[in-house]
């Protein structure tokens, strides 16, 4: 009995010292981490919005509440929030920035997207992903999928094999589809809420997006879907639902 108390006291002391050390370090680092994440967010917004503004012009960002905006990311437990981009010449706004959440192969991929006021993608950057290193994780690398999104509108923002205009990356169709579909869902929600000017959206009416979920089931047969796919094809259908 006496020994058990002694062992318990030792364990408690060890845990106490560890907890105090962690608490002290956390109280020091938490504010720095928060500041850094905020800075990283600002920096990412400035980066994706680069194509919206003229050279040397600095855009301003303010979060806006949009009436009638449906949240397409409920299945990922995330909320679509829209930030309006303005500059001195156009205080009424030159475009929007939002974060798209798509369920990829092994993580929920967060993509920050800038669109102009016509709903055309002007820039994208991956904020977070933890996909397979060497395969899906390559989505962040320059000249891969995300750089081909600029200039597309919602109907085109879909993988070629699903009827859109973006080639998926070899070996990571799930990752590619998650990013592309999450962006399109965000764009469609913003369009439905009437955020975009109609002038630039002619193609929207003429060429409705072929967004049946059935197209997803064909995926495993497609040429460049490889081993990464097979265990987990069912997970994709969540990404396709609006």
């Amino acid at each position, binding site marked *: 009995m006496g020994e058990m108390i002694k062992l318990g006291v030792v364990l408690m002391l060890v845990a106490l010292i*560890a907890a105090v050390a962690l608490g002290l*370090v956390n109280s020091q*680092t938490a504010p720095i981490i928060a500041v*850094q994440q905020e800075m990283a967010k600002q920096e990412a917004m400035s980066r994706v919005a680069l194509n919206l503004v003229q050279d040397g012009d600095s855009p301003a960002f303010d979060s806006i509440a949009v009436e009638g905006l449906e949240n397409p990311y409920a299945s990922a437990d995330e909320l679509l929030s829209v930030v309006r981009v303005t500059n001195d010449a156009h205080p009424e706004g030159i475009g929007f920035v939002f974060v798209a959440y798509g369920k990829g192969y092994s993580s929920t991929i967060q993509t920050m997207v800038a669109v102009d006021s016509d709903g055309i993608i002007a820039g994208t950057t991956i904020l977070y992903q*933890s996909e397979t290193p*060497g395969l899906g994780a390559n989505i962040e690398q320059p000249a891969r999928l995300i750089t081909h999104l600029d200039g597309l509108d919602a109907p085109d923002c879909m993988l070629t094999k699903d009827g859109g205009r973006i080639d998926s990356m070899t070996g990571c169709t799930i990752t590619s589809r998650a990013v592309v579909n999450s962006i399109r869902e965000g764009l469609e929600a913003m369009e439905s809420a009437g955020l975009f000017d109609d002038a630039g959206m002619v193609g929207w009416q003429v060429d409705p997006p072929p967004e049946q979920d059935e197209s997803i089931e064909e995926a495993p047969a497609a040429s460049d879907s490889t081993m990464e796919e097979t265990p987990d094809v069912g997970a994709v259908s969540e990404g396709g639902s609006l």
Partner: protein
Amino acid sequence: MSLAKDLSNGIYRENPVFKLALGMCPFLAVTTSVENALGMGAAATFVLVCSNFLVSLFRNLIPSKVRIPCYIVIIATFVTLVDMVMNAYLPDLHKSLGIFIPLIVVNCIILGRAEGFANRNPVLSSLADGIGMGAGFTLAMVILASFRELLGNGTWLNMSVLGQSYSSQPLLIAILSPGAFILLAFILGFFNVLENRKGGGR
């Protein structure tokens, strides 16, 4: 044992991966690129040295019946500290290593060395052992990662080696999980052949 011997022990004679077959989970999981292997190796080495130091320092104070929980608390504390400090002061490095750092807690090399070496050896030897084992682990990961990145992506440390024509149609299996097992078997076989050649192979 001399310090130099403690240091070199982990690099070849008792290489944690190739000879002791410890730490296989992170070893197979993160060796998809040389960059990942170096990062994981560096982080694991840091935690290994710190935990060896503390375990050795308090080896006479911790009752043997509760030593394993104590070691785990020590290791987990260091891993969390590394995670928080790196996130605050080296955000870029943290971003590229972020997913590997929590994995270090379950790296059995660290618990294995705390249990197998540091709790019965003096502080300096334990430090040397930690550095040696960490270097051995890093070396082993870089070897496997070199094969996997070269065959599976045509690059080494993100530099193109085998040319664009190879990179567009690489031997993809090398970078996927089955490739890790297959290549590991070849490497282990190679080390066994070496051992047998020297004679006295068990």
